[in-house]
């Protein structure tokens, strides 16, 4: 490999990593947390009971919908599991005469009036309004406060740059295998580089996989041209890749809907795996159809098989054909990205790799400043670009985790009757983050870093304590009933809280030293001013 090639790739790695690093940090943090999406959906509603009999929830869902929306165009009922808070079901009303059919995306936000959560006892749950773990899942690719399509292009672009940064990073890092286990502590720039390399190389297969498969999840938007080349109408190819049973016209003749538990049991027997979604079209009509898809938790590919039944007789009328090799490959990649197939052990592995990715991005961003500070003409008065990067690092790396801690606290403390409560939980995150960003730009970084880390640490450590005292789903209560998911989330928050406190202490401890050597040569000042090493 020529020296020039490596240098050009080092340049590319540095700048593509820097310019999109802040977005990638957000995406990594939210994506990592989203691996516990189902658990957080329950943790954020401590008042609800754990689902022990999923079929009871299903029966309750059907009873509720039969009363509430007997004439709906369709019902969508997720099959509850022991991991889920219940069944977050929704229905699509019959289009009014003259209104276009099937307008608007199903299941989108702002459908509060056509969705409810059915709990473990089969009744409508009266729980606090929250987005729970769904927030992190959505934020991971939709961000917030901006049109979804812009967010996805932005995230897609950042992901492509991430792939470029990883590949050029591999080229740049020549001693990739020799330095594999090198971690020089308390050595300034060298330590940051080692930390960046260790988190990058250790989880390198994961980073490559998660980045490329992330692009595949957005492929239809990012790379529609392969379809355009072969099809005049994109709908043809979507109908082919995601086949559904033939649509039957509503007859207008009423007929009772079969017990959905019977359909679910039959589908699970035929599929040999749990069912996840049940969609009923034209319930109560003689032409009713019930479609059941296999749970994504039971298989790698996200292209889950579907069965469609006659909703009156319960006869199987259609089953999805097996996907082609390419569609199956793309589906498997999306499945690999989301990790739904993974059990608890697998989720932990995903979670730890996600943390490694987060640390890789964060240390890379900090490394940019550490490296340049030593070369500044006057380290006490850096130029504008340097200060901007330095402050943005504090605002994003220090501020976003604080915002997340505030999200969890808002979930616990906001009044249950507050209007738009779920929105205010999210506003709390962004308000706290905005305040942190203001602090980052007003106060010296050496003071803000430890303050933000300490605040995040205290908030996170206090959460499980609050749960212990103020809810009946505290750590010990959860352990006593064997609810390891909720206990695990409480414990993980405490661990993260202590980690942030440790980080804050390490960063803060360098301050007196910085003052002492203020007039020392630039190199030393630079090292001691930096946060944790």
């Amino acid at each position, binding site marked *: 490999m020529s020296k*020039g*090639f490596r240098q*050009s*790739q080092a*340049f*590319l790695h540095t700048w*593509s990593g820097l310019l999109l690093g802040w977005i990638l940090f957000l995406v990594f943090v939210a994506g990592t947390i989203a691996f516990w999406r189902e658990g957080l959906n329950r943790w954020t509603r401590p008042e609800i009971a754990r689902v022990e009999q999923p079929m009871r929830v299903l029966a309750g869902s059907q009873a509720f919908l039969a009363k509430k929306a007997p004439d709906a165009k369709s019902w969508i009922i997720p099959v509850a599991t022991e991991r889920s808070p219940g069944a977050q079901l929704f229905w699509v009303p019959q289009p009014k005469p003259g209104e276009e059919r099937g307008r608007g995306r199903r299941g989108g936000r702002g459908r509060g009036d056509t969705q409810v959560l059915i709990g473990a006892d089969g009744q409508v749950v009266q729980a606090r309004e929250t987005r729970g773990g769904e927030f992190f899942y959505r934020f991971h690719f939709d961000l917030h406060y901006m049109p979804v399509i812009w967010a996805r292009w932005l995230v897609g672009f950042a992901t*492509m*740059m991430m*792939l*470029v940064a990883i*590949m*050029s990073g591999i*080229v740049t890092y020549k001693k990739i295998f020799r330095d594999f286990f090198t971690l020089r502590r308390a050595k300034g720039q060298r330590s940051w580089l080692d930390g960046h390399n260790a988190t990058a190389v250790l989880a390198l297969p994961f980073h490559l996989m998660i980045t*490329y498969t992330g*692009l*595949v999840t957005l*492929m239809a938007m*990012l*790379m*529609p*041209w*392969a*379809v*355009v*080349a*072969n*099809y*005049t109408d994109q709908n*043809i*190819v979507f109908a*082919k*890749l995601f086949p559904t049973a033939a649509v039957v016209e509503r007859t207008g003749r009423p007929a009772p809907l079969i017990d959905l538990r019977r359909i679910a049991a039959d589908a699970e027997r035929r599929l040999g795996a749990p069912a996840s979604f049940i969609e009923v079209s034209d319930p109560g009509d003689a032409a009713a159809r019930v479609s059941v898809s296999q749970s994504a938790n039971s298989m790698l590919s996200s292209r889950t098989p579907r069965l469609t039944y006659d909703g009156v007789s319960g006869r199987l009328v259609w089953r999805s054909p097996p996907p*082609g*090799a*390419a*569609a199956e*490959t*793309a589906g498997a*990649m999306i499945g690999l990205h989301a990790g739904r197939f993974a059990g608890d052990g697998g989720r932990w592995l995903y979670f730890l790799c996600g943390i490694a990715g987060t640390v890789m991005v964060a240390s890379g961003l900090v490394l940019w400043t550490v490296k340049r500070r030593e070369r500044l003409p006057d380290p006490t008065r850096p130029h504008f670009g340097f200060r901007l990067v330095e402050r943005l690092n504090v605002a994003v790396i220090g501020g976003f985790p604080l915002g997340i801690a505030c999200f969890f606290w808002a979930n616990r403390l906001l009044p249950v009757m507050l209007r738009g409560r779920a929105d205010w939980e999210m506003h709390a995150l962004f308000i706290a983050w905005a305040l942190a960003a203001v602090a980052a730009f007003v106060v010296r970084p050496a003071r803000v870093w430890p303050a933000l880390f300490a605040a995040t640490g205290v908030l996170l450590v206090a959460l499980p304590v609050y749960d212990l005292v103020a809810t009946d789903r505290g750590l010990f209560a959860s352990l006593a009933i064997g609810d390891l998911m909720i206990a695990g989330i409480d414990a993980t928050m405490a661990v993260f809280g202590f980690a942030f406190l440790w980080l804050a202490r390490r960063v803060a401890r360098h301050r007196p030293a910085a003052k002492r050597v203020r007039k020392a040569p630039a190199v030393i000042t630079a090292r001691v001013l930096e946060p944790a090493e």
Partner: protein
Amino acid sequence: MTAGDAHARARWARRGDIGLRIVAAVPLAYATASLWAMAIARLLPGDRAEASVTAALIALALCAVAAMWAFAARSGWRAIWTLGVAAAVAAAITWVSIDVTGRV
């Protein structure tokens, strides 16, 4: 010409070169990858939907490689014209292929 002038000129030349590479690495790399997505989707035999999915999967990786090439090429201009030629070849393949067999 003074040394200062030469220095300033070298700096602007470097900036111009990086500007060209960014054009090559972002819009041009995407355009090239997209055109190759179309060409590969046309060239692959068998089921059309399958060919399209395979081509899109390949093109995503091609886009990253093209961006790397934009910075690995000896100069910014070289990055631009090499990617331009690659894009033109893919466009020609796609155009001829659609002209001959049409789309679904």
